[in-house]
């Protein structure tokens, strides 16, 4: 089956985002496909390139990076939300005259059309928040 995932919460607000990443990994392990993981609102914070993790705390960025780099899962940050949270790729950073990009290259910034497209083609749409 084809899954689309929607992540609404930031990685530091609760466990929702981390659960989403583990869920995604398990979906693939069970032989399904993931057309896209779409990050909306506070969920766009999952794309923060410069997050620093204390040694005794979990790295919440790495599971997403692995999904993108090792399993070709598309990670999309909603552009409207991303901008508000200071999540910018190189293009947006230049456009808005900010000093640098702030999102990890495993993530792409795009519009809500990508979410709509993913839901239209998905057998399962699973949302994570909290």
């Amino acid at each position, binding site marked *: 089956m084809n899954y689309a995932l929607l992540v*609404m919460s930031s990685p530091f607000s609760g466990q929702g985002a981390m659960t989403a990443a583990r869920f995604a990994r398990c979906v693939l392990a069970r032989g399904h496909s993931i057309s896209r993981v779409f990050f909306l609102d506070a969920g766009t914070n999952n794309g923060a390139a410069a997050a620093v993790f204390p040694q005794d705390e979990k790295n919440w960025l790495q599971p997403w990076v692995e999904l993108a780099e090792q399993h070709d899962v598309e990670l999309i940050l909603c552009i409207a939300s991303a901008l508000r949270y200071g999540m910018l790729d190189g293009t947006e950073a230049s456009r808005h005259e900010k000093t640098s990009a702030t999102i990890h290259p495993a993530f792409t910034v795009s519009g809500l059309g990508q979410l709509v497209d993913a839901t239209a083609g998905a057998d399962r749409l699973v949302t994570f928040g909290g």
Partner: protein
Amino acid sequence: MVLHTLNASPSSAAFADCLRLIAPGDTLMLLGDAVYGAVTGSPDRQALDSSGAEICVLREDAAIAGLDNRLEGATLLDMDGFVELTERISRQLAWY
């Protein structure tokens, strides 16, 4: 049939709102702080059981919360079991 996923504590509006919409025959998957709602004998657990939905709990979140032995009658699922629920039930509604 709907798979409701709830990731908010029993004292939250999300918990109350979810309980209002859940129907007999639905499945309720408790994540994060929602696992506290499944504590055996608690009023929140009674409310969950009265909904007529099957109460499932993500095992790893129950362990983190220290509730391993306090969730009698709830279906403890690992992540594999959670994914399997979504294979079986086509509609998922997230409460958080």
